[in-house]
């Protein structure tokens, strides 16, 4: 039963990533694109954790944690650049 649920969640997360990619390409403002990248990082975390459950290894957990941190830092860096014209002042 878990396999079916995993397949369903894989399809959902993949579809969500595609939708985010659409927003990233056609987003009318810069903030839209930054938001799309942030959401893509979160969907990537979901995919990694799901893959870890599917393979029954906890190896992908560390990758997911790193993804969360790098996604947060990159979003903040983009927003700082838009706000101040510089990242580290």
């Amino acid at each position: 039963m878990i396999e079916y649920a995993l397949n369903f969640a894989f399809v959902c997360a993949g579809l969500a990533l595609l939708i985010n990619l659409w927003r990233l390409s056609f987003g009318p403002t810069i903030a839209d694109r930054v938001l799309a990248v942030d959401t893509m990082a979160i969907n990537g975390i979901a995919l990694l954790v799901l893959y870890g459950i599917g393979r029954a290894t906890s190896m992908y957990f560390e990758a997911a944690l790193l993804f969360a941190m790098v996604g947060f830092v990159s979003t903040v860096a983009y927003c700082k650049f838009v706000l101040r014209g510089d990242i580290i002042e």
Partner: protein
Amino acid sequence: MEFIVELVISVLIVIGGLFTLIGSFGLVKLPNLLMRLHAPTKATTVGVGSILIASMLFFWVERGTFTIHELLITIFLFLTAPITANLIGKAYLLRHVDPKDDLPHTGEAEGWATFDVRDPEEQPRDPGKLPQD
């Protein structure tokens, strides 16, 4: 594996996948950015949260040892989501909202924080005026 535990894990995974999809669907459907900012928070909290709880339960049943290190990701996401939302909103305000026409007056000597970048030694300004650049 017991049937009930398997059922709970499967339901949590399905809920997580659905909410991830709903969050991204809102990103396309809603009309402007300040509304769009609202949609992916569902994917962050309920979506990734329930997938991580499912992962916790799965490895508990699989290995027999209960670990809470999945909660690290959840806590990290819960801590950082408001910060990113605030910064994205500020970036949008700075580029696309005119502080004179679109925002109500603050009623203080200072204007809106995103637009009002003053050095602290300057004298308090006339409340009606906002910085020009």
